[in-house]
């Protein structure tokens, strides 16, 4: 397939791996902060292509994984209201809440529909005027513009039975928080799809303030290896900066139209991240001028008190201080078909990626 196969060429992978070995002398810990990268790194066996002194660690880049359990509990509470239809991306449906999952609620009769796009959720609202359609808006800057576009479309179409429950988040605050909280990192593989929307300048504070490099990377094996190579060169030369490896898609200025949509509909608020806690101005709430589409403001519901699972160490995995093999439940009690924690549910979750591509 075009724009895929040519980035998976075996010969080129080997030569790039050799080139990295040739240039790299200092030990390095490189973190990827995008779930798509976590998955690709495990799938293509990238760690085996690197010298032993380069360690790859996964960060808080899987939107499902960092989402608050209280959010899932709230979605479950909504799903129990007879007038509500929940529209959600498939990833969320099996994420454990405190006592249930959306999947279980669906089996016991709740109206929960899996959609691929918020546009499908709008169609649902149009066809079910007597119901309230609640769309579960999770994801980073990549996904949030779609939610913004959906809300604006709903307003234009007069679809006042359409609501978004926003848990949208932005990427820079956790990248800063990890370093502030003392996690040892020598460079970031920057999130390719987030940057498609935001551009590269929002990461400039990382080399400036923390003296760490950021290379915004594509998702094929050659992309990831080349990004690592660029980080190695920066590290060897003590010259951290923000670079774009994924230049076929990411422009320095990002996507102005998508950024406009974000700014029109959302405003930043403090938000909770699994593993990192509450981070200042890291989440996106719906602005009051669009509050008639804000599920939190328009539909009140009682939510059960949140209970976390004992034994799940998802939080420290998302911070890059533990790996799934440090978890006693991994692969035994907790598997993709019967997940205990969020990191095992989404394909992009570190536990799920390790399970699928490594230790069966």
């Amino acid at each position: 397939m075009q724009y895929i196969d040519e980035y998976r060429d075996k010969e080129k992978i080997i030569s790039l791996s050799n080139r990295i070995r040739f240039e790299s002398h200092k030990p390095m810990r490189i973190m990827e902060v995008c779930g798509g990268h976590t998955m690709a790194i495990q799938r293509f066996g990238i760690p085996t292509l690197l010298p032993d002194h380069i360690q790859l660690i996964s960060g808080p880049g899987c939107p499902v994984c960092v989402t608050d359990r209280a959010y899932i509990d709230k979605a479950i509470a909504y799903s129990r209201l007879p007038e509500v239809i929940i529209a959600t991306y498939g990833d969320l449906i099996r994420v454990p809440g405190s006592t249930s999952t959306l999947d279980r609620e669906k089996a016991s009769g709740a109206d929960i529909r899996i959609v691929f796009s918020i546009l499908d959720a709008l169609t649902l609202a149009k066809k079910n005027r007597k119901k309230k359609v609640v769309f579960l808006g999770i994801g980073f800057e990549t996904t949030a513009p779609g939610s913004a576009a959906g809300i604006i479309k709903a307003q234009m179409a007069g679809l006042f039975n359409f609501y978004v429950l926003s848990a949208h988040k932005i990427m820079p605050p956790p990248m800063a928080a990890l370093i502030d909280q003392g996690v040892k990192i020598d460079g970031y593989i920057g999130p390719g799809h987030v940057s498609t929307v935001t551009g590269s300048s929002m990461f400039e504070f990382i080399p400036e303030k923390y003296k760490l490099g950021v290379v915004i990377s594509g998702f094929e094996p050659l992309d990831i290896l080349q990004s690592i190579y660029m980080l190695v060169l920066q590290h060897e030369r003590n010259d951290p900066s923000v670079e774009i490896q994924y230049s076929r898609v990411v422009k320095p200025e990002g996507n102005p139209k998508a950024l406009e949509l974000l700014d029109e509909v959302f405003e930043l608020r403090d938000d909770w991240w699994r593993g990192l806690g509450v981070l200042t101005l890291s989440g996106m709430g719906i602005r009051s001028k669009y509050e008639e589409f804000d599920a939190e403001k328009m539909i009140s519901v009682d939510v059960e008190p949140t209970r976390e699972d004992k034994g799940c160490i998802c939080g420290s995995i998302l911070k890059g201080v533990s790996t799934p093999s440090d978890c006693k439940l991994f692969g035994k009690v907790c598997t993709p078909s019967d997940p205990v924690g969020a990191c095992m549910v989404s394909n992009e979750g570190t536990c799920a990626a390790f399970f699928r591509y490594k230790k069966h």
Partner: protein
Amino acid sequence: MCLSIPAKIESIEGDMAVCSVGGVTSNASLQMLDLNDIQIGDFVLLHTGFALQKISPEEAEATLALFEEYESFNEMLDVEERETGTRIV
């Protein structure tokens, strides 16, 4: 969920397009792109029903050219290793 894939534009109507990804077609909103800059046959990055960016063929070529460079560097190392009988990497 964060999966975003290169999709080829098959047809355009207003700000909606039909795109194909490895033979499977799906609808995509083009509202986040500059419509004057988009043609049938272009590749875009598709995410949850929205095209987020047009993929630049020139930039893709430039990246691929770099990979060629690494390959020739590698061949050079191979030759040197053979001639000197020492392992470099």
